[in-house]
């Protein structure tokens, strides 16, 4: 008890007395207790990303950012308008390119929803595609070509962002594997070769020519013998 009172007294006296000779020059009243400032140090946000990977490598994203009451207040204070929050998303994903970005605030549920098309998340290397997620994301579930990852990122003031990333690979994707390389979580997958689907007319012609070549090799007299064979068959 004595120790507590002593401490209290010392604190109070110290608060009252510091710098009295400079009193007149200062805008603050003596005796005003010194406290730190309140910063949203324990803000927690959930960031739910639903990503659909198209066959051409573009990724359609629906993102939902949910926050605690404090977190949402801070977020709205810093980004009161949707176009400001757009910039927040763009800055966060500065190493890719976003198109058709739309943002909506859902104040009742303390969440922000965004949708966009992401360019640069996939690339084709040799005969495989690679889809990259920044950081070390943990694969939590997988059902067919849908993979779910989780990841936690620190916020600058000490809070954290809990991310759940659901990736829907194309239905035709096969040979799916997940690795972590160079600070990225990477999903490798194969798609049916799309080189042949580049120009249908040319592919058709190519097919016919190959068939003719095979026929020419198989037939004893080659393609020129075909009319004779047909004639023979008729008789």
């Amino acid at each position, binding site marked *: *008890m004595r120790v507590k009172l002593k401490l209290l007294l010392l604190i109070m006296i110290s608060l009252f007395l510091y710098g009295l000779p400079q009193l007149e020059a200062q805008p603050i009243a003596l005796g005003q207790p010194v406290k730190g400032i309140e910063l949203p140090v324990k803000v927690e946000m959930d960031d739910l990303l639903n990503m659909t990977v198209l066959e051409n490598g573009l990724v359609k994203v629906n993102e939902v950012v949910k926050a605690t009451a404090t977190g949402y207040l801070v977020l709205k204070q810093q980004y009161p308008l949707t176009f400001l929050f757009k910039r927040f998303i763009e800055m966060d994903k500065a*190493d890719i390119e976003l198109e058709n970005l739309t943002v909506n605030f859902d104040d009742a549920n303390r969440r922000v929803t965004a949708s966009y098309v992401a360019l640069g998340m996939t690339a084709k290397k040799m005969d495989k595609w690679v889809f990259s997620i920044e950081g070390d994301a943990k694969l939590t579930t997988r059902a067919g070509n849908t993979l779910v990852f989780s990841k936690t990122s620190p916020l*600058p003031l000490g809070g954290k962002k809990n991310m759940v990333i659901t990736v829907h690979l194309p239905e035709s994707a096969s040979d799916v594997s997940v690795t972590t390389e160079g600070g990225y979580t990477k999903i490798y997958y194969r798609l049916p070769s799309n080189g042949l689907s580049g120009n249908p007319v040319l592919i058709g012609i190519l097919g016919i020519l190959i068939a003719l070549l095979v026929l020419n090799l198989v037939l004893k007299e080659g393609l020129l013998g075909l009319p004779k064979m047909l004639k023979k068959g008729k008789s």
Partner: protein
Amino acid sequence: MSLSRKNLINLALIALIVAVGVLTFTGSAALGGEPKLDINVHYKEQIISAAYKVYGRPSLKFWVAKTVLKNTGDVPVRNVKVSYYIDGYTSWSTPTEYDEIPPGGAVVDTYYPKLPKKVAELTSPVPTKLYIKVTYDKGGRTEEIVQSKDIEILGVHDIVYSSIPAEESLLTFPDVFSNAPLLAAWVTPTDPVVREFSDLGNKLAGGAGASLSDEGALKTMQGIWQALLIRGTTYKTEPEGFWTGKYAQYVKFPRDTILDGEGTCIDLAIMYASLVAAQGLTDVYIMLVPGHAFPVVRLPKSGAMIPIETTTLNQGATFKQAVQTAVYNWQQKFSKGPYIPISVKMWQASGVTPPELPPLPPDILERKGIKQKILEVINKLGGELRSYSNNYFSIRYPSSWSEDSGTDDEGSFVSWTYPEDEGMTLYVSWTPFQGSLSDYISYIESLYDEHRMGMQQGQIGACPYVVASYAWEYEGQPWMSNEIYILCKGVGIHLSFQAEKRYWDDGTASTVWERVMGTFYPMIAGG
């Protein structure tokens, strides 16, 4: 030897298959399947050389160039290679290869160059060019496209607060300060000049262990503040347009602010953050608010965030007042608007690290007379504190100061005086007193010819107390004092710390006061 008809047909078919195959896989202008690649380059018009290491760390996303390649044709674009080069500073980068971009698809290529150290030696902006080379297969040959962009490598003290092109900027606070995290590169706790000055501040605080406890941290922060006051550090207003984010601005490294003895609010904030970080208080922030900046320190145990209004150095404010002013400003103004807290710890851990600064003479603080000034004050403080107690109070005092005791008009007294010129005295008297506290104060004040400057009242348990400050002249010299009156259980205690005004002006007296006051305890208040 002549070929049979069958073989001739075989050969013809094979030739056709090869031709059509090539057309199919590479595309053909003749058949309307030519690859079409749309190239859009985003780039930084200015490279901030103080933070040059940042550009080579992809995890930070501060690319120098970002190239968006879109396939707008009907056939795949193959063998795409992208490389970059900054004239005079890098060689061509190893090309990034993209085997195929399907129709409608796109890739995004980013350039994170390892810039040479020499950029941190630049003292003014240098114009140069960024080259981007893209190659891809087109109609059986390699198409090469080279673009060049005018860029500037800034001087090592320069920062542009935003790299968002003017046409894209929303002119909001986060846009105007999109480069704010790079300010962490200006925080240099390991710079020998910073370390030495910080150590002097810690010595003023009595060698507190800053990172061990909140109390130790506050003492250290206070000691560093005192050192800055003793050094005569002042706040210089920013030039017009400083906060617009449009132009490169000159930001001092902490060593410059310490040696020059002046700085803008951002200079002072960076310097103070560096000085406390040098004592192990590494969880520091530079808080950017519209038109202003100040440091914030997180205490090691409670996690309390302590802001410091470093511009009050100008007014000779005490550390406590600097904190109170910062808290007041935060509560009244800044917390209601946009702000950017730059966590030095987080950003430096992520790779926003300072450049290599040129070595300075190891005795630079002495050459500038800074070290001697602070050591002189430390000497005046009298080294370690020594305890004194009786039945009425306890206190600690500078051990080398001359002690006196006896009785005078106030009653019994004990005093300690700065031995060199007797310009500072700590005095405590006690006497039985019947009457009110105001009677006691009137009695004491009647003994002297002093001008009271301010007064505050309070209560400790059943004991009222008053704190007051006074000014007077003695032998032609102005003096000032801080005093405490306590009346408790029929005993009046009067504590007075008086010093010549010049000692208050140079920070010595407030340093002694702040050290000693925390140790005073009137034991008759009970407990």
